[in-house]
């Protein structure tokens, strides 16, 4: 991990740096697995290694691959970094050791999630129950962050009348990558199916709105890479995406408002169903759907915008 990170910083060739960053994300996903953080590993692999690598590649195609040798003095940043690092290391001396069950972290708030979430919310995956219900408002804020990013990127590089067909990065001639087309024709439905599985499996095992959203988006990004942006736009037009992204946030917020109107506090799922636990199930399902809607449409929209901008040059 450390060596990969060091090499990412040292290398001049940005393409290698991006690829190594993807490898670094996969390694960190592995480390998260070792530290029992299954959902986080899933998300880091899907979002960290997948989407950000694709976006960086698009940016690199637009901005050239190699980096100039640094001209500024290198010792000042090194000094700042060493000082911050020393402060942090000095700060960790009184931290309880890693992994000790007696840590204050495990005494105060967490035990209730572990013991009562089974009864109160009734789904095995405690992380999803905390994510969607106990701290559901954080996740609403986070969906708004994803929507803001999509809106911001659209404001910056969107709304462009593309001159001529947007040539995909790979396929220069239609018959050129026959093998890729055939295999991807077979793979895309499987990826979409897997995405839906992750979406609805989120309550039992690792999974949930974000991971599902990214996987659904990646299926269509494969299509975009292989068949070219124009054909993908015919299947999923950009205007549809710009409607779906806000709808996801509204669906999430609306579920909360429904709880409000039915008598509970905001984002309280109890009144939604006949029984409180049933309400929780319905609430979490709707909320995860809203998240998946926003995340998948925003990720795909980002790829459309970057592809259109890159192809224009």
């Amino acid at each position, binding site marked *: 991990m450390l060596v990969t990170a060091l090499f990412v910083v040292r290398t001049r060739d940005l393409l290698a740096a991006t690829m190594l960053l993807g490898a670094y994300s996969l390694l960190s996903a592995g480390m998260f697995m070792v530290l029992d953080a299954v959902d986080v590993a899933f998300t880091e692999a899907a979002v960290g290694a997948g989407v950000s690598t694709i976006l960086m590649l698009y940016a690199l195609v637009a901005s050239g691959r190699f980096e100039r040798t640094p001209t500024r003095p290198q010792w000042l940043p090194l000094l700042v970094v060493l000082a911050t690092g020393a402060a942090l290391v000095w700060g960790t001396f*009184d*931290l309880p050791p890693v992994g000790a069950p007696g840590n204050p972290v495990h005494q105060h708030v967490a035990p209730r999630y572990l013991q009562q979430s089974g009864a109160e919310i009734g789904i095995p995956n405690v992380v999803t129950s905390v994510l969607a219900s106990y701290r559901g408002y954080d996740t609403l804020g986070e969906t708004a962050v994803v929507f803001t990013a999509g*809106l911001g990127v659209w*404001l910056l590089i969107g*709304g462009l009348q593309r001159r001529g067909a947007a040539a995909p990065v790979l396929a220069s001639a239609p018959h050129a990558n026959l093998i890729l087309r055939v295999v991807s024709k077979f793979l895309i439905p499987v990826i979409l199916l897997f995405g839906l599985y992750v979406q609805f499996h989120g309550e039992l095992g690792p999974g949930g709105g974000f991971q599902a959203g990214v996987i659904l988006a990646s299926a269509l990004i494969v299509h975009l890479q292989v068949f070219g942006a124009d054909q993908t736009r015919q299947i999923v037009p950009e205007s549809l995406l710009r409607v779906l992204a*806000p709808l996801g946030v509204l669906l999430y917020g609306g579920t909360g408002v429904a709880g409000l109107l039915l008598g509970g506090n905001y984002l309280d799922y109890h009144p939604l169903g006949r029984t409180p636990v049933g309400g929780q199930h319905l609430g979490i399902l709707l909320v995860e759907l809203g998240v998946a809607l926003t995340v998948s449409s925003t990720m795909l929209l980002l790829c459309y915008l970057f592809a259109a901008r890159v192809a224009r040059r």
Partner: protein
Amino acid sequence: MSAHAQLLIVLLPLLAAPLAALMRTPDAAWALATAIAWSVLSLALLLLLQVQAEGVLSYAIGGWAAPWGIEYRLDPLGALLQLLLAAVAAAILPWTRQSAARELERARLPGFYAALLLLQAGLLGIVATGDAFNVFVFLEISSLSTYALIAMGRDRRALTAAFRYLILGTLGATFYLIGVGLLYALTGTLNMADLAARLPAVADTRTAHTAVVFVTVGLGLKLAMFPLHAWLPNAYAYAPSAVTALLAATATKVALYVLVRFVWTIFGAEFAFGAIPLAALLGVLAVLGMLIASAVAVRQDEVKRLLAWSSVAQIGYALAGLALASGAGLAAALLHLANHGLMKGALFLALGNIAWRFGNTRLSTLRGLGRAMPWTMAAFVAGGLSLVGVPLTVGFVSKWALLQAALAAGAWWLVGAIALASLLALAYVWRVVEVAYFEASESRDLRCEAPLGLLLPTWLLVLANLWLGIDTRWTLGLAEAAARALAGAGL
């Protein structure tokens, strides 16, 4: 419905933003944004009355009790900030319609208004929440929308300014995240009130000290404290005028609010000022900020950058008030926070009128504007006087409160710094006034005043500046109530 007012004030702009993005025509999006801004103002007033009646309001989101679920807490300090945010936004949004229509492309306007709503929702969310991690989430919402809004400026330098602000802002947010993480490791909770209760037990550990330092540095980056202010001048100078006005009046204030919240509510005065020399550190940086930023402001030839540098100096004033570590100092800092929001709002709107008419705000363009745009320049002069702190203006009230607090705390160095900085402020305001009124310019003797739609909001803010300068019952009373709530018997 009033029981949910505490939440609706954040939820309305948050859910209105996707709606605004879906709108086809810019006017519909603008109408929605203005309606939301005005309803948020009424909610802020309602909440203020509720807080004055019942003291601290608490709202458990999702029906889960405090440390487990996320809790919204509103105390007099939060109510004061929300009122400032709502009032400034309600004044600026009607003004935005004509200014944005001229500065931005028509296709991007619905998105622009959606981003403005998200910025407002983010800022209101930070002030309303009682959960440390929720502050980070809403900090990111407001920051991301700010980066996008700044980058929409016409000048290409807006892009580099937005990128630099993105890098520094994200570093600041991540430093804040490290600080909250360390606090979580020590106490096991994220709820601010719970954190305040459990922190004294672990307060003397080195980790707690590091956490305080990291939270302060992180927020210092966000509120452009003196050495960490590199992003502010360019960001405010090249952003669209409406965005600069809104940011200058609210964004840095909210970051300062979070710092006050952490120092006074979570760490508690004796820990924050006793164990770590925070008071001395903030005091030195504030004074340096005041003097150097004002000095640089005098030499600027682009009036928007001049006012941006003056904003860095004014934040120095508020930090100096905070650094006095006394109840009076806190009240003065909060008062200056609110007053500075009004002052800068009025000044940037006046500049926006000029930019609307001439497209840029260089000092040379302002030559002879005293006669050409009398109302706008009159508004600018009123705002400038208030900035300097001339009696009968709101600036004077906050400077006077700061001086009193400094004298009470025996901080002579601060009294001298305030006097010197005010002189510098007089210098750079006078420089603009001199160019506008006394330098004749032949090409512009015809009267080309900005349209009524732009003038009314500007003068609304200027009148607020003057009226609150005279009748200080509102601002001074609220600031002292907030300070009393935080500092307890400190007053």
